């Protein structure tokens, strides 16, 4: 086997220029795939993370039918007891966060706009979402039930500043219900549109406004290990009554999940096409190198070398080419990705300040991330592809007839 490997390695470097061109083609293709995938993966992760942390959880518990209807009077009943039960179930694996989502009207002496107000538990919320980091003026919510945080654009529309009073009106149990709040903070999410309708109040204030004590719209479970969501969802589903729906994050955030799935499929198709083009290039190169060596293979066969050994040599040549190309390609891909990972890619020039994907407000600067799983798949596929490209030339060599081959010039 050693002599076959030695022969293969020397054959690969026999024509240095050709090998360099082949390696360049494969590695550039691979580098492009790695870079593009790292950027997509970073964006997906950010979308999923942001979506999960601010709009849902890895597992969400809602009133039965709320996911489809978004009906404001569909609650998780006995919220305190349910939350205690979930706290016990999740234990040290994560944190349970209660939320209410209110649609209504917010008014100031200078005007009124529609509002999407989230009622939340500030102590728990800061552990899972980064709303508090987006406060650009004032402070985030605390235990003050009279406080409200407004999107910066909304504050501008209402012409209010920190300390000013606003009134939020929503549909109560029977009549319109309203409550007075004092503006304690302004946030900027990165999306001017979102900043025009977002507001945050405490959970107690939201329940009071809805005239519905001890209920929430959502109990979201945020896990330390996101991959555990399905197991936790199943466990929670078994423990809670059927009057609530228990959803894993892909069901709770179908738009994000579907978008990521679709985009991944599209990327896969693109990667497959790039891979195919590169494979054909490798096939051509290896075929040429086999045709150039027909005489040599004829001699080896004449000396009694088994045809299977010729196949082994040529496939090994493909493997060596593949390993070198993958090493160069992955190295190059990571090198190009690195600034995208550490400094991010600023899409603001292209997208403006509103970078909203599938309902999730993202920062205009998107950070790439290393998708190790794909990196390993691409690396193995790169080597496998170059090896597969050698199969046809190898079989061709193995079928040579020594006498005719040795006459080949």
């Amino acid at each position: 086997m050693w002599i076959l490997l030695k022969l293969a390695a020397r054959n690969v470097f026999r024509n240095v220029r050709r090998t360099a061109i082949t390696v360049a083609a494969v590695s550039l293709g691979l580098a492009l795939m790695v870079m593009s995938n790292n950027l997509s993966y970073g964006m997906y992760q950010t979308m999923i993370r942001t979506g999960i942390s601010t709009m849902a959880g890895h597992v969400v518990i809602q009133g039965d039918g709320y996911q489809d209807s978004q009906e404001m009077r569909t609650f998780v009943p006995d919220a305190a007891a349910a939350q205690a039960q979930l706290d016990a179930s999740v234990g040290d694996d994560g944190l349970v966060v209660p939320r209410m989502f209110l649609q209504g009207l917010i008014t100031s002496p200078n005007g009124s706009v529609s509002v999407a107000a989230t009622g939340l538990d500030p102590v728990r919320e800061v552990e899972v979402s980064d709303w508090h980091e987006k406060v650009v003026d004032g402070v985030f919510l605390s235990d003050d039930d009279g406080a409200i945080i407004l999107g910066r654009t909304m504050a501008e529309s209402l012409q209010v500043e920190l300390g000013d009073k606003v009134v939020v009106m929503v549909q109560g149990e029977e009549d319109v219900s309203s409550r007075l709040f004092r503006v304690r903070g302004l946030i900027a999410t990165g999306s001017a549109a979102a900043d025009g309708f977002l507001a945050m109040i405490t959970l107690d204030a939201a329940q009071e406004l809805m005239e519905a004590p001890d209920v929430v719209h959502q109990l979201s479970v945020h896990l330390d290990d996101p991959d555990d969501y399905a197991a936790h969802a199943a466990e929670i589903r078994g423990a809670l009554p059927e009057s609530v729906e228990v959803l894993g994050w892909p069901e709770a955030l179908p738009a994000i999940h579907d978008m990521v799935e679709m985009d991944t499929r599209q990327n896969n198709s693109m990667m497959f096409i790039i891979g195919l083009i590169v494979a054909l290039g490798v096939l051509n190169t290896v075929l040429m190198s086999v045709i150039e060596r027909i005489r040599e293979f004829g001699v080896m066969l004449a000396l009694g070398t088994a045809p299977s050994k010729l196949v082994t040599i040529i496939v090994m040549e493909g493997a060596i080419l593949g390993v070198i190309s993958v090493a160069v390609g992955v190295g190059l891909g990571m090198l190009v990705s690195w600034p995208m990972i550490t400094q991010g890619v600023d899409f603001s020039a292209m997208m403006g300040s509103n970078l909203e994907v599938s309902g999730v407000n993202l920062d205009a600067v998107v950070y790439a991330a290393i998708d190790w799983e794909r990196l390993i798949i691409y690396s193995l596929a790169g080597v496998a592809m170059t090896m597969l490209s050698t199969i046809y030339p190898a079989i061709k060599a193995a079928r040579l007839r020594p006498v005719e081959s040795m006459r080949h010039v």
Partner: protein
Amino acid sequence: MPAIVSVRDLRREYQQGTNTIKALDGVSLDIDEGDFVVLMGPSGSGKSTLLNLIGGLDAPTSGAVVVEGKDLAQMSAAERARMRLERLGFVFQAYNLIPVLSAYENAEFVLLMQGRSAAERKERVMETLHAVGLDGMEGRRPSELSGGQQQRVAVARAIAGKPALVLADEPTANLDSKTGADLVELMRQLNEEHGITFVFATHDPKIMDRARRIVRLVDGQIVSDERLD
């Protein structure tokens, strides 16, 4: 002396367009173990074809080739390949060394394919390279050797695996007169000292001068078979 090769009524025809070329036309021949036989004849007389058929590199249209008691027609391609590897050595006109391997590695190639141990390989290669006069040139690649030196490496490769029979097709055709004569002398020496049977296809008088037996072919038929010793 028992026959190491027996050829019976051997025919090999080629199709060239609508014409049938009879490269060999009913050849029968026995070659004894330890012999030094020259097949001679003009171009197209069938000597290389006969050599290829004896070596199992080509299949006859009809007739039989028996090497060491085994009928090649009854053997599979893999068995014939194994036989070539274990029992036969080849020397070609154009040296046909593997260009990416050194002289040492070229001579070692057959031994590696035979699965010999590292120690045995080293001993055999050094011994054969010494026998062909290439001491100190082990590390050189074919491109760094003269034609005569390359053919010596080819001879070393042919005999390193201790074959019973070496088939040499015009081994001196690309060499100058002195180098060719030296090589013939070397092969005769190997024949005498190690008892290796040599069969040549050639029209080089130097080889004929050292032959023990000369078989002349014309138009695919044996026209004379002369024993000289």
